[in-house]
């Protein structure tokens, strides 16, 4: 007889429900960003499971009846079949105080009363009083509804067939820029109405020593609204230079279809070889291109073609051999390639219509740049454990990338690393790694920069020549089975050694410490602290075309520093008094950022070949530092009335503080001013105190 045969076969489960209320001061939208913590009755959790005729049945519900509710169901025949279903709702509440003059919010046509447009056109300064009088408050939010089903069927012990289907519907509005000129700032509630359907299926055959798998994946994205037309709040009639309406394209509908296959073979002496291949095709859905402009005062040249004809082929190959014949040798060698072959035909733009204003001839025509990339990655690692539990390793990675339409035709990143890990029987663990990487580009084409008026010595940091050093240390001590203390440290520097302009370097330092103490089966405590510092230096030149463009005295730099402190404390004391359980936690995270402008030479970080030149720029006014601080404390008390019934009381404290020179309320004292009309999606602080009374019933 095995233990499983004693498993009860009736329904077992629990229901957790009650009433809660929140006292909120501040931005309720951020407090409820991805959740629904509304006042009133709640049904927080329902679980029910049973075993019947060899089937394991499970049902679950979370936040039932709320906007973030989730339901799960599964039926499992352990020998053959697993079927599961999930319904999940994810709200994203951005603001409850956004305001707009537009009607038709949520659709692809955003309109403003013609009379109001005319009034502002006649008197531009009227935008503020018009907005104050006629701006309507609305929620800026989206929600995802996700239905997901999967079936895993094993007709024999060796064969498993898996299918998954997921359908995600997202709808709502998001803030979006919709300007009408260089000095105009109009924020619109862009509609989000799309559906994503994913289906994948795979068959896996496992018979020692071989695993063979083949799979298919299909993903179809359909956007109901692929462009949005929005009235110009500052103008009622079209003129060549300024339209009364604008039109923006939104996300295109598309699909991705792929197939893949894998073979993995177990070899003698604890070795395994694996090969994986995949290929796929990404396609635009073929929707017609929008006309150049919606401005009736302008006539534009016919387009070269009427659709995007977007298509890209992807392919990937992955080969891996790993062997651990004994403690002295542990070898892993792998090769990986990935190809994104963009086959979208080049499109010539002979006229540019930047803001639905007057078209400008583009001579010679500007061509689209269908970006493509091919990556080849070779990895080799050797590790050995000569004594006890300490493992030393060396490794090498070579990552070669060929790209189209970027300033470097190809880059090669060589990475060397050493690792040292000690995992003792119980009381001490150390994992350490040092990595040095050198990335170098080939086929530099500075004309790609100069042809668009860019500085020729700018380097894009994601592909620029770079030296990288990184070290990580993770240590933990477990002097007894009940106490664990850990320390972590990470540091690194990226040096973009030839980037006269652009990101010059960045560094990071991370320190962490934590301890967990398990007093006994009923009591445990944990505390954790981490400090992170990220610094980056980037360089630029404030210049207009002409003499300024080549004047090094106009150089400046931005020195960015991000500091974050995070604290986590938790305690769990079961039976703190007879029949009474206590759980408490406190999370704190404070992020500060400072952006310092430096004009003239930058001490210690000026390139060796540069001649320091005194600045001719005025002394910049420093930007105010930013602050983003979260605090959250929770206390839960559960009192057991009977073996089936418990009652509970909980208290949650949430606080968010923010200073942000671009997005907080102080930085945006007026939503309508000059040629600007904002919606008011801003950073606002909040403090929330939430009380819960709950009843838990187990059956």
């Amino acid at each position, binding site marked *: *007889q*095995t*233990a*499983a*045969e*004693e498993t009860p076969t009736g329904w077992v489960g629990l229901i957790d429900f009650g009433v809660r209320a929140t006292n909120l001061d501040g931005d309720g939208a951020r407090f409820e*960003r*991805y*959740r629904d913590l509304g006042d009133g009755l709640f049904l927080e959790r329902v679980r029910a499971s049973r075993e019947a005729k060899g089937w394991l049945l499970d049902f679950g519900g*979370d936040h039932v009846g709320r906007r*973030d509710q989730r339901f799960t169901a599964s039926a499992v025949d*352990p*020998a053959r079949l697993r079927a599961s279903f999930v319904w999940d709702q994810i709200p994203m509440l951005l603001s409850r105080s956004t305001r707009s003059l537009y009607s038709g919010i949520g659709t692809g046509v955003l309109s403003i009363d013609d009379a109001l447009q005319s009034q502002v056109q006649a008197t531009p300064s009227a935008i503020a009083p018009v907005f104050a009088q006629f701006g309507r408050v609305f929620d800026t939010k989206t929600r995802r509804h996700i239905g997901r089903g999967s079936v895993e069927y094993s007709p024999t012990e060796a064969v498993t067939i898996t299918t998954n289907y997921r359908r995600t519907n997202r709808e709502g509005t998001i803030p979006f*820029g919709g300007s009408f000129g260089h000095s105009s700032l109009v924020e619109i509630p862009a509609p989000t109405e*799309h559906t994503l359907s994913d289906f994948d299926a795979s068959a*896996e055959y496992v018979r020692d020593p071989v695993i063979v798998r083949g799979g298919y994946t299909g993903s179809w994205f359909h*956007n109901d609204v692929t462009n949005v037309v929005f009235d110009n709040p500052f103008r009622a009639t079209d003129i060549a230079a300024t339209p009364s309406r604008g*039109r*923006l*394209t939104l*996300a295109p509908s598309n699909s991705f279809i792929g197939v893949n296959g894998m073979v993995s073979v177990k070899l003698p002496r604890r070795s*395994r070889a694996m090969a994986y291949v*995949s290929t796929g095709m990404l*396609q635009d859905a073929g*929707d017609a291109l*929008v006309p*150049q402009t919606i401005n009736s005062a302008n006539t534009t040249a016919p387009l070269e073609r009427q659709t*995007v004809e*977007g298509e*890209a082929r992807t392919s*990937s190959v992955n080969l*891996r051999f790993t062997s651990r014949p004994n*403690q002295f040798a542990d070898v892993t060698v792998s090769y*990986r390639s*990935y190809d994104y072959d963009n086959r*979208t035909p080049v499109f010539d733009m002979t006229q540019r219509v*930047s803001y639905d204003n007057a078209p400008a001839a583009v001579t010679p025509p500007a061509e689209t740049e269908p*970006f493509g990339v091919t*990556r080849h990655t070779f990895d080799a690692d050797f*590790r050995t454990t000569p004594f006890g539990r300490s493992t030393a*390793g060396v490794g090498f990675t070579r990552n070669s990338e060929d790209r189209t*339409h*970027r300033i470097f035709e190809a880059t090669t990143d060589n990475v060397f690393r050493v690792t040292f890990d000690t995992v003792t029987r119980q009381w001490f663990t150390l994992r350490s790694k040092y990595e040095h990487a050198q990335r170098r580009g080939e086929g530099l084409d500075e004309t790609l920069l100069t042809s*668009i008026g*860019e500085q020729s010595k700018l380097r894009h940091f*994601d592909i620029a020549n770079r030296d990288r050093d990184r070290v990580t240390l993770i240590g933990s001590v477990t002097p007894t089975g009940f106490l664990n203390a*850990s320390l972590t440290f990470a540091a690194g520097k990226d040096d973009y050694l030839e980037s006269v302009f652009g990101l010059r370097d960045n560094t990071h330092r*991370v320190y*962490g410490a934590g301890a967990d103490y398990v007093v006994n089966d009923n009591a445990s405590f944990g505390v954790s602290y981490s400090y*992170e510092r990220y610094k980056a230096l980037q360089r*630029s030149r404030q210049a207009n075309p002409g003499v300024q463009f080549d004047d090094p005295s106009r150089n400046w730099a*931005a020195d960015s520093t*991000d500091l974050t402190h*995070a604290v986590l404390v938790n305690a769990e004391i079961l039976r703190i008094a007879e029949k009474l359980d206590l759980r408490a936690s406190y999370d704190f995270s404070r992020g500060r950022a400072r952006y310092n*402008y430096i004009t003239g030479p930058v001490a210690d970080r000026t390139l060796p070949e540069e001649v320091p030149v005194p600045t001719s720029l005025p002394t910049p006014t420093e*930007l105010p530092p930013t602050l983003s601080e979260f605090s959250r404390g929770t206390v839960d008390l559960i009192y057991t009335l009977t073996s089936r019934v418990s009652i509970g009381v909980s208290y949650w404290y949430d606080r968010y503080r923010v200073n942000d*020179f*671009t*997005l907080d309320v*102080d930085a945006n004292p007026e939503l309508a001013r000059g040629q600007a009309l904002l919606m008011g999606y801003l950073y606002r602080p909040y403090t929330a105190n939430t009380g819960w009374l709950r009843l838990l019933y187990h059956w």
Partner: protein
Amino acid sequence: GREEQQPQKPQQKEQQKLQQKEPPKEPPQQPPTAPPAGMRLPPISKSQEGATYVGDETCLTCHEEKKQSYAGSMHGRTDHPRAPGAKMGCETCHGPGSKHAEDETIPGLIRAFVKEPAREVNGTCLTCHERGTHALWEGSVHDSRNLSCSTCHSVHSFKSEHAQLKTVREMDTCRSCHRDKVAKVDRSGHMPLREGKMECSTCHNPHGSTSVRQLRKGDSIAEMCTSCHADKRGPYLWEHAPSRDGCATCHDPHGSSNERMLVTKPPILCQRCHVGTRHPSTIYDGAVIGSAPAPSIRIYARSCVTCHSNIHGSNHPSGQRFIR
């Protein structure tokens, strides 16, 4: 007679009561002293050579506290062909226990995984968990750093609702090593992990994958991100190459204090690649922020994406600068 005279342990008394209340449907079978031919079992330790299998009843005589977690999990199933319960019970993983049962004071006569090297622990688990999402464990990053299955999972003392993790939340398991990544979940710009709508394993497969960074879907970072954010998938008429090359160039998927999880604030972020002339090259300092007397629309509110709103790519015929 001598055994009956010995005082019984409390667990044994409880076990007897259970058996009296709920007699087994079938009479207990004598455990086989050796596994049937063809049954796949993990290797046994050298000190166990020559030992025979004694069955769960014998194990539970002393290890009663392990019963509940074992019986309530898939491991205890007798109807799952790969479960220990359908094979040799406790001894499927711990090896034949006759020598240990004879004298439990001699160490090493039974496999205790907390004392074994990772490769031995993992070899045991992989005997059955060698397929599906675990098929790529060998040679994966976690495998190469000597993590064992029991670093994250527990067979007998798990706390999570799924996957038998040692912590209630998956995120807390990952935090024990990836403290900096998990800490970012508490920043103002974050994915809905702390709200319970996502987990680390939504994007990563800690058991290994064919993609980079142990990503679960696709063959690149961009393919992983656009498997949910398909509105950014393109292909566009006008591509913004860095966003196609990798979303993490501009975004930190683990969270940041900046809007839309950007790695730093615009316009600073955009000016890392756009120097050029006119407005990209300008210092937007404290004199032109929104609260200043003469603010610039290029720094307050949405900053650069006020105008360049289609920054991931545009299908507009004039979308070269991502304004339309």
